[in-house]
């Protein structure tokens, strides 16, 4: 893979790559397979693996294999048996289908609001900038919403995110 990456990057950097090596890269099925192994899309389309990487059952199975310690109370059995016919799970999976439409399209995940100063640009309206996951937002920013419970704030975030995602979805399915 490293060699191929090097070839690919030399291909990008330098247009004077020998056409033979280019052809070799394009037509070598083995190299292509190695390349596409790193792509989910290839896996899904070849039906090699389920894209839904649900490792919980594997983990449970692994746990079941482990010798039980006397000090640990086994609780895994009940969890596993209930999981399969739980309606909530299937609903969440369905929910997720729509949710990702937007995530691919590049929509925000809002975790925090920061209040900025009113400026000429925003006509004096208080601006709340969103910061995606991983953004360095200090906890102080939550003070911007003092008086509101965290739950209410969470509800609002979810709703706004749903609006943004629906916006993306409407654009994509537009006739």
């Amino acid at each position, binding site marked *: 893979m490293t060699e191929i990456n090097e070839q690919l990057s030399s291909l*990008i950097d330098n247009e004077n790559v020998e056409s033979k090596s280019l052809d070799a890269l394009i037509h070598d099925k083995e190299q292509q397979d190695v390349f596409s192994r790193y792509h989910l899309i290839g896996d899904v389309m070849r039906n090699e693996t389920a894209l839904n990487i649900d490792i919980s059952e594997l983990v449970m199975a692994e746990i079941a294999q482990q010798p039980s310690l006397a000090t640990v109370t086994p609780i895994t059995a009940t969890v596993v048996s209930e999981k399969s016919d739980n309606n909530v799970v299937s609903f969440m999976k369905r929910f997720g*289908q729509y949710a*990702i*439409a937007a995530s691919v399209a590049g929509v925000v995940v809002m975790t925090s609001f920061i209040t900025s100063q009113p400026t000429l*640009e925003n006509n004096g309206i208080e601006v709340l900038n969103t910061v995606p996951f991983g953004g360095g937002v200090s906890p102080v920013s939550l003070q911007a*919403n003092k008086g509101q419970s965290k739950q209410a704030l969470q509800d609002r975030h979810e*709703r*706004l995110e749903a609006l943004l995602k629906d916006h993306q979805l*409407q654009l994509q*399915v537009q006739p």
Partner: protein
Amino acid sequence: MNRHSLFSTIVASVLLLLTPLGNAIEVDGNSKELVVKEESTIPSAIEYLQLMQKSYQIENYEILYLSSLQKQLEPMQLIHGIVDGEEASYFRYLNGVIRESLQYAGKISYFEQGRPAYTIESGQNRSVFANIANFDYVKGKQSYDYVILGKGRIAGKQSIAIRMISKDDYRYSYVVWCDLQSALPLRLDTINKSNVVVEQIMVMSLNVSESSNPWLAKLTTNALPETVHIPESTTDNSSQWKTTWLPTGFSVIKDDQHRLVMHENEPVSYILLDDGIVNVSIYISEKKLTLEEPQKLIRRGATVLYTEHRGEVEINVVGDIPVATAQRLAESIKLVTDDH
């Protein structure tokens, strides 16, 4: 490959010499190379933009690019090609969770790590640069002026910068950089009225080829994930709300009542506006949560989400527009009929 490069270099050099003297550049349909026409004049800004549009649709290319907004960088890749006479494009995020999409023959499939893959029926191209590549520049003259800013170098390519200046304050302006050789877009800056870049897309590597990427062709022949059907709008299709004001160039292209599938199936009245470059969604719904401030505004790059409360009604405006436009649109929403 070597001869090809040499030829390109010669053409580029000739262009550099001749262009200031009053010659035109055109995309030749057969060789897909730029040729110099002796008798023509320098292409105008709009002609460059139209060349860019054509190349974006018909060429086989691969780009690596960065999307930059609010100090966040996101590297992405797009592979575009013509497979059996139809456009195919493959897109992926290069960092973090694997997110990919494939668009071909009226369908777009999404793949994300840990989630079931699915397909949506969609004839819309929403990938990078698609907004400027599908814009009707002639019609757009009512909203924008097109000006050539000059030449520069982007992603190692000689390129030309063209500014689309908004004629009013209700939309953003743009600077589009096009490769002089292939005419493909290399950079797009979204600029507010204070000349601040609010969003930027910058190509780092562009690779144009004669034939499409074989991997792309292979993908299009494989079975797609299951198609998801988006719930229908209500039988009474039209929204009971109307906008009483629209910025120049915008028109209502959709008007319905549907449910937010991602949020408790909440019913909303919905209006979709379009000006060719950006789309604006307006949601009118029941007020769910009392906010401390009467108005709320969320912004990420060029995208704004503006909320207005009016009695028991909540109006949300979403789109890549300046705040003032979103605010005025929300204010312009009026109830047409009341059947309930």
